């Protein structure tokens, strides 16, 4: 018999009986799901399965029709610590002709409710330099974002998501429209980060093959057409020996 692993991690995302419908079509029904600290969760489903809807509810972009969503133990309506969340959007979520340099985009990860009306400090510049260095994109820092390859653009968005050293990293179809080799490289990068750093991952993808090597062949649960794959933190290292130092570099 395997020894019982003590769950010493706090709940990062909690969904209780969450439902959502588009007009008459119910896409999510009575969903109960919990993401614990340092888990890596893959939300997998085909187009139209409702995974992006679910993600938008989790980050507060869509209100749940029924049920309750909590982030870090706080009901989503009252949640204020948005800097604890890093968000990597779909590659096609931005206008490639937008006049912004890599540095400007990465820096925008620091803009939140708490930084309203505040000027960027030298410390903020340093955070940006660190994020650029971690993602190895410092040599393209002054290039226009639209001039980069799909893989480079995703590294830029990852750097932006990481600049605040978030506790939860949310990735929405991060490799859509990117070639297979770059996809594999990107996935290696984030699984490596999951193994090394004190961070929780929630990734939406339609590509089952990409996640099953890391998250296992079988989903831990299913809701409609959405499947949930999880690699728990205790599968990485023992909680008791865990180094809680939160560092990126």
């Amino acid at each position, binding site marked *: 018999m395997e020894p019982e692993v003590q769950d010493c991690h706090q709940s990062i995302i909690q969904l209780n009986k969450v439902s959502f419908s588009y007009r008459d079509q119910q896409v999510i029904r009575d969903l109960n799901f919990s993401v614990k600290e340092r888990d890596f969760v893959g939300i997998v489903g085909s187009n139209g399965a409702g995974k992006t809807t679910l993600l938008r509810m989790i*980050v*507060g*972009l869509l209100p749940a029709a029924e049920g309750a969503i909590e982030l870090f133990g706080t009901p989503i309506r009252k949640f*204020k610590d*948005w*800097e604890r*969340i890093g*968000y990597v*959007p779909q590659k096609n*979520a*931005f*206008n490639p*002709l*937008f*006049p*912004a*340099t890599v540095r*400007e*985009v990465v*820096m*925008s*990860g620091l*803009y*939140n*409710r*708490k*930084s*309203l*009306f505040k000027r*960027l400090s030298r410390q903020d510049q340093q955070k940006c330099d660190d994020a650029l260095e971690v993602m190895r994109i410092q040599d393209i820092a*002054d*290039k*226009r974002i*639209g*001039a980069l390859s799909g893989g480079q653009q995703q590294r830029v968005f990852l750097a932006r998501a990481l600049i605040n050293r978030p506790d939860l990293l*949310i990735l929405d179809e991060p490799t859509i429209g990117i070639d297979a080799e770059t996809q594999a490289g990107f996935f290696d990068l984030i699984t490596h980060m999951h193994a090394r750093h004190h961070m929780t991952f929630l990734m939406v993808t339609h590509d089952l093959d990409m996640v099953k090597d890391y998250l296992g062949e079988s989903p831990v649960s299913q809701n409609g057409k959405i499947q949930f794959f999880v690699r728990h933190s205790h599968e990485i290292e023992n909680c008791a020996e865990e180094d809680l130092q939160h560092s990126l570099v």
Partner: protein
Amino acid sequence: MLDILFSDFFQRALVGGVLIGITAPLIGMFLVLRRLSMIGDTLSHVTIAGVALGFLIEVYPIAAGLVFAVLASFAIEKLRKAYKSYAELSIAIIMSGGVALASLFFTLGMGYNTDVMSYLFGSIYTLDTTDIYMVAGVTVVVIAVVALLFKEFFLLSFEEDAASVSGLPVKMMNMLITVLTALVVSTAIKIVGALLVSALLTIPVAISLLLARSFRSSIILSVIISELAVIGGLMMAGLFNLAPGATIVLLLIALLVITMLGRKGFTTT
């Protein structure tokens, strides 16, 4: 011939033009990048309705136009929410409403038609001290708000979802940009005219998007281009007795064509 450049009315026109030359592209950048270029046209049509009403009830026309434009900006945001997937619908509805109201007020006060015409095509040489104070006040407000919220407006324009996930007050910021647009448009119509104000909001931005690499440089460049067109256009209009608003806009279009011919496609590196 050069005497006109030193006359009081020309100096006032220059001051008004230079101030609008700053604010129009500053706000226009956020409109163009959020694909709301037509909002300037809509608000200018509504402003004309306010101006017409101002003449009718003998209230300072630009102030009446400004009130109409701000009210219209609230209505646009409301309609944008109601028809989320058809954002341009709100623009079409409010624009036609503005034209209808303007037409109604036109017919109710047939005697002042020539005054209203000056707001349709601009009459920068008739700027008085009150107009200059009005433009200066709007310029201070626009520069202050954009300076305070520059980085937040950047994120909103670049990726609205990311701005929401960062906890930024996205609805309030959208509203603020629309209200600032209303302020700029209502004060700009006497300078370039309601039918041409959209050009001042969008063409300098269109040129800077061809040339600039970063967001900051594209904003600075759009203001420089706008000032070149406003000052150059006013000088040319003054010297050759041309319509100033039209000269400014045609100069902007000429600059755009020259830039496009000078570059084959967008600067992407």
